[in-house]
C-alpha cells in the first residue's frame, strides 16, 4: 500500500509539473497584459493592480476592433462555405457509388498533408491577377479550399458510419437522395458538424501566412496579422502587446474550454492522416 501511495504522489506530481509548464507562458501573457504600461518588466510578478485599460488601449490604439471584425467575418464565411460544400461532397463519397469516386476522394485527402508553402506562391500571383488580393474573398476562398480537405474527410467518415438500414428505410419510404440528406442525415449529424465547425473556426481564426501574403492594406487585416504588425511597431510596449495577444486567444480558448472533447477528437482523428 505504501508504494502505491508514493506512486500516486509521484504521478500527480509529474502531471502537475507538466500542467504548470504548459500554463506558465500563458500566465505570463495574462499578468503582463494587466501590468502598468510603464513597467519595463516582462516579468511574471503579480501585476500591481488590474489595469484593464490595456485592453481598451489595444482595442483603440492597436485598431483591434476592426481587425476582430475582419477575423469574425472571414471565419464565419469559411466555416459556412466549408460546411456546406464538404457535406455535399462527403454525402456522395459516403453513400453513393460512381466511377472515379475513389480517385476524387483521395485528391481531397492529399490536401490534408499538403503544406501551404506548396501553393502560396502562385496563389498570390493568381489572386492578384484576378483582383482578389486585399479583399475578403482573397482570404475566404483559399482557406475554404484548405479546410475542405479535412471537411470532406471528416464528414465522409460520418456518412459511412450511419447505419445502412436507415438509408434503405428512407428510400423505401420514397425519400429522394436530397431529402434523405436534408431531413435525416443533417439533423442526425449534429456532433459531427459541431466538431467540424470548431476545428475550421480555430484554423481560420489562427491563420497567419495566408493573411500575411494576401493582405497588404490595413482595412482587411485579421487579428493574427494585426498582432504581428503591432509587435513590429510597439515591441517595447509589452503590456499592450500582451493585451492584444490575449484578445486574440480569448475566443478560441473560450470555445475550447466549452467543447474540449470536440477539439481534441477533431484534431487527433481528423488530422491523423496529415
Amino acid at each position: 500500500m505504501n508504494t502505491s501511495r508514493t506512486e500516486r504522489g509521484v504521478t500527480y506530481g509529474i502531471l502537475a509539473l507538466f500542467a504548470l509548464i504548459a500554463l506558465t507562458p500563458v500566465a505570463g501573457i495574462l499578468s503582463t497584459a494587466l501590468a502598468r504600461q510603464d513597467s519595463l518588466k516582462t516579468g511574471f510578478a503579480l501585476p500591481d493592480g488590474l489595469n484593464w485599460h490595456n485592453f481598451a488601449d489595444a482595442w483603440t490604439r492597436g485598431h483591434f476592433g476592426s481587425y476582430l471584425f475582419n477575423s469574425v467575418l472571414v471565419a464565419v464565411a469559411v466555416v459556412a462555405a466549408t460546411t456546406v460544400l464538404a457535406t455535399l461532397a462527403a454525402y456522395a463519397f459516403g453513400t453513393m457509388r460512381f466511377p472515379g469516386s475513389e480517385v476524387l476522394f483521395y485528391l481531397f485527402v492529399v490536401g490534408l498533408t499538403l503544406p501551404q508553402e506548396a501553393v502560396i506562391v502562385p496563389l498570390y500571383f493568381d489572386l492578384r491577377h484576378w483582383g482578389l488580393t486585399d479583399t475578403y474573398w482573397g482570404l475566404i476562398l483559399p482557406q475554404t479550399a484548405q479546410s475542405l480537405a479535412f471537411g470532406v474527410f471528416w464528414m465522409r467518415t460520418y456518412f459511412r458510419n450511419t447505419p445502412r438500414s436507415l438509408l434503405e428505410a428512407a428510400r423505401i419510404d420514397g425519400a429522394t437522395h436530397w431529402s434523405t440528406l436534408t431531413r435525416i442525415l443533417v439533423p442526425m449529424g449534429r456532433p459531427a458538424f459541431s466538431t467540424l465547425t470548431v476545428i475550421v473556426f480555430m484554423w481560420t481564426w489562427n491563420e497567419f501566412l495566408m493573411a500575411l501574403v494576401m493582405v497588404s492594406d490595413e482595412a482587411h487585416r485579421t487579428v493574427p496579422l494585426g498582432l504581428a504588425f503591432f509587435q513590429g511597431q510597439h515591441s517595447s510596449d509589452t503590456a499592450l502587446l500582451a493585451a492584444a495577444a490575449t484578445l486574440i486567444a480569448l475566443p478560441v480558448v473560450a470555445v475550447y474550454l466549452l467543447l474540449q472533447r470536440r477539439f481534441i477528437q477533431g484534431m487527433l482523428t481528423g488530422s491523423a492522416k496529415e
Partner: protein
Amino acid sequence: MSALTGRETGARRAAAAPGTRRARHRRRAPGEPRAVGYLYVLPALAVFGVFLLWPLAQTGWLSLLHWDGLTRASWAGLDNYQDLLTDPELRVPFAHAAVLLLFYAALPVAVGLLLTAALTRFRIRGMTFFRTVLFLPQVLAMVVVGVAWRAVLAPDGLLNDTLGALGLSGLARSWLGDDTWALPAVGTIGTWVETGLCLVLFLAGAQRIPRELYEAARIDGAGPVREFLTVTLPGLRAEVAVALTLTLVAALRNFDLIYITTSGGPGNATSVPSYEVYRRAFESGEVGSASAMGITLTAVIFALTMVVTRFVEGRSR
C-alpha cells in the same frame, strides 16, 4: 484515419479469404450506383481545384523557371533543384529543419512515452483537467505562442530571471538573438507545443489497453521496464504513428513561429524551408527558387509521413 485503416484491414481480410460473401461485400464501394454523385461533389471540387490543386501544379511549373516576379521569366530546367543540393545557403534551412524535427517530434514523443509509462499504473482522477491544460498550447495561434515565448526568452525575461535566482546568471543570454542558441530556443517552443499533444494521445491510448495484460505481465514477474516494452509500447503503436505524423508536419510547417520570434535570424541561424519560401518569393524576388523549395518541402513531408505509416503502423501485424 479510422476510415482508412478500416478500409485497409477490409482489403487485407478480403485478400486472405477470397470468395467469401463478407469479403466481396467489403471490397465493394458503399451505396447505390448514382451518377448524381458527381453533382454533389462538383462545388467542393471546383473550389478545391481552383485554389489548391491548380496552384500546386503552378508551383511545379514555376520551380522550373528563373523568375523575379516582375520581368519576363526564363527557362531554368532543374537548375533550382540542383541549387538546393549544391548551394550551402539553400541547404542550411533543411539542416535546421532536421534539428527542429528532434525538438518538435522526437523529444515530445519520447517524453510522452516515458511519462505514460509512469502514469498508467492506476486510474488518474481529474484527467479532464490535465487533458484540457496539456492540450491548451495546440489551440493557441502560433502568433500568440510566439509573443508569449519572446517574453520568456527575452534578455530580461522569465528564463534569465530564473537563472539569476538560481545563481546561474552567467548562463543568461539573449536566447533568440544568439547564433548558437536561437535554433534550440525555437525548438524548445516546439517541444512545449507538441509534448502536451503526445501525452494526451498516449494517455488516452493507454487507458484502452486491457488491464489483464498488465496483470499477466506482473504475474510473469515483469518489472516496470519489461512491462513498458511488452505491454504499453506495443499497445500504443497506432498512437505513436499519429503523434509522429502530426508533430513532424508541425515541425516542417513552422512559418508563423519563425516569423514572429526570429525572422530566420540572427543571420540565418534559424532559417527554415517554410520561411525561406516566403522570403525568397515575396522579399528577394527569387520565385523559381522559392517554388523549388516549396515542392521539395512537400516531397519531404509526404515521404516522412509515408515512412511513419509503413514502419510504425505497419509492423502491428
